[in-house]
């Protein structure tokens, strides 16, 4: 690992100060679950590492009038087990609980989970691809069987690895960003960007910015949500495909639905076409199949991942029937 300076920040102001001072040379260290590996493998070589683990006011889960407030440093295990999260924001608890292994959930933060880097093995290996500033994607003509896109891939075909992001999209969450400018809040779906906007990053954060809080609005009455994920059999690993759905229903009739997919595109992907097909209708097996078709419409599978199309469809169907 290349040597670096460790900065142990105690407050958001200190984090902001360190980031502003060192800009592109600095990285935030939350649980370190991803950053440590990136640094060991020299995929990322920051000169300054700003630990936010000791920043007091970003470890919390609070249910307030407008919804659930989650500090960026909140660990995934706490989210997975929190009573209010399990009860009213079920998809998020399930997604947090589906991340990796118990050890990693005890270490990994929600902020870090949202900002983790891709798992494409060329990116993780010694390949100077687009994502590292190179000028070729090795996956497009190479081995793309697991962690590559079937939807929205272009230039770079990685899939966004975060499970919690998928749940946050379905739950209509907002992400609060602090930095040199005034604090701002964006919709979860606007936080993530694809390779067309910028292949070198996966979200809108500028070098001196950080996530401080995630807010999930209180769901309307009669709303249920769930998160489902398929991974390589018997592993603790990342999603081959995942789906999160939130559905408000009255007498079995869906009034509004939000549906998001993970593991299939360079961003956690909200599929509004499928959402629209559900509104105002009774969720039956047939309707859920239709929505599943719409969710994967326009898929452009790669040479080795066509199976993900069917996998995604069956997850969507299952998830819809579960919340109906």
């Amino acid at each position, binding site marked *: 690992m290349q040597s670096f300076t460790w900065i142990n920040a105690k407050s958001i102001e200190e984090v902001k100060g360190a980031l502003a001072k060192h800009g592109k040379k600095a990285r935030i260290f939350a649980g370190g679950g991803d950053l440590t590996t990136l640094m060991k493998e020299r995929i990322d070589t920051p000169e300054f590492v700003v630990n936010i683990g000791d920043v007091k006011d970003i470890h919390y889960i609070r249910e307030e009038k407008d919804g659930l407030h989650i500090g960026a440093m909140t660990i995934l295990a706490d989210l997975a087990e929190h009573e209010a999260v399990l009860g009213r924001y079920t998809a998020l608890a399930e997604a947090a609980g589906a991340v990796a292994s118990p050890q990693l959930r005890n270490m990994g933060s929600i902020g870090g989970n949202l900002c983790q880097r891709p798992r494409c093995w060329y990116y993780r290996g010694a390949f100077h691809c687009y994502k590292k500033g190179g000028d070729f994607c090795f996956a497009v003509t190479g081995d793309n069987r697991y962690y590559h896109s079937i939807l929205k891939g*272009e*230039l770079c075909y990685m899939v966004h690895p975060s499970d919690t992001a998928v749940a946050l999209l379905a739950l209509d969450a907002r992400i609060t960003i602090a930095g040199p400018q005034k604090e701002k809040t964006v919709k979860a779906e606007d936080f993530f960007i694809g390779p067309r906007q910028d292949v070198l990053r996966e979200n809108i954060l500028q070098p001196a910015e950080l996530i401080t809080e995630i807010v999930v609005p209180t769901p309307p009455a009669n709303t249920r949500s769930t998160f489902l994920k398929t991974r390589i059999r018997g592993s603790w690993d990342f999603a081959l495909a995942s789906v999160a759905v939130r559905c408000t229903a009255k007498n079995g009739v869906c009034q509004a639905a939000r549906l998001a997919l993970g593991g299939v595109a360079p961003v956690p992907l909200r599929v509004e076409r499928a959402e629209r097909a559900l509104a105002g209708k009774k969720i039956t097996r047939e309707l859920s199949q239709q929505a599943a078709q719409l969710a994967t419409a326009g898929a*452009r*599978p790669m*040479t080795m991942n066509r199976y993900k199309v069917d996998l995604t469809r069956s997850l969507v169907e299952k998830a819809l029937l579960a919340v109906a």
Partner: protein
Amino acid sequence: MTEAAVTRRDFLRLGAVGAVAAGAAVLGLANLGTQPQALPLSEGAIMPDPSLCIGCLTCEVVCGRYHREQGLSDKPRIRILNHSATTLHAEIQRKYPGRGQFLQQPCKQCPHPECVYVCPVNAMRLDGANGARFIDEARCVACGRCEAACPFPIDGILTETAEPVAWKRIFFDEQKGVFTKCDMCRGREGGPICVERCPINIRIRQGVLKTDRLCLDVTRATTKVYDSIA
């Protein structure tokens, strides 16, 4: 970078004084007053071979990115459509199966470019070095005449969004408030970036894919070429 402003207005002006040539880029001035037509050919046009295209959209993204880096509109100037009628090359079917069929839709750099003739503010220009027809975004007043005049539609299901589009080979950038089109990456060492970065071209150049053609090639924009681009 040299450029010759060859526009309808120049034609008329030059015609009036009976000039035979103006600047490096103006050739004969026949047919003045009817359809102006004797512009020099573009040294290059993007010549696609849809049978080799895997719809990866690398060309679109690198096009947008390169022009953004030049301070220009970042709208891709080449677009990819889904096109079930394309017959794939045997090598593509064998090595990269099941990705679908596509049609690349670049600008043809027409020998008689309608877009150039109609611009009222001299924003449609010919690159002095390679003859590429391009829009000077600083001059474009976004009247849309070039787009209306371009006879070649981009009409079908856009691969990027899987939604239908009905465009021309000139694009409006809502953010910048200008029209833009393929300029053959004028001034770029290495030529058009789409041709350089198309991963199929890269694999062909490496000998991994064996074909006698490229997925995207650069060719002199003759009338024959113009007729053969979809």
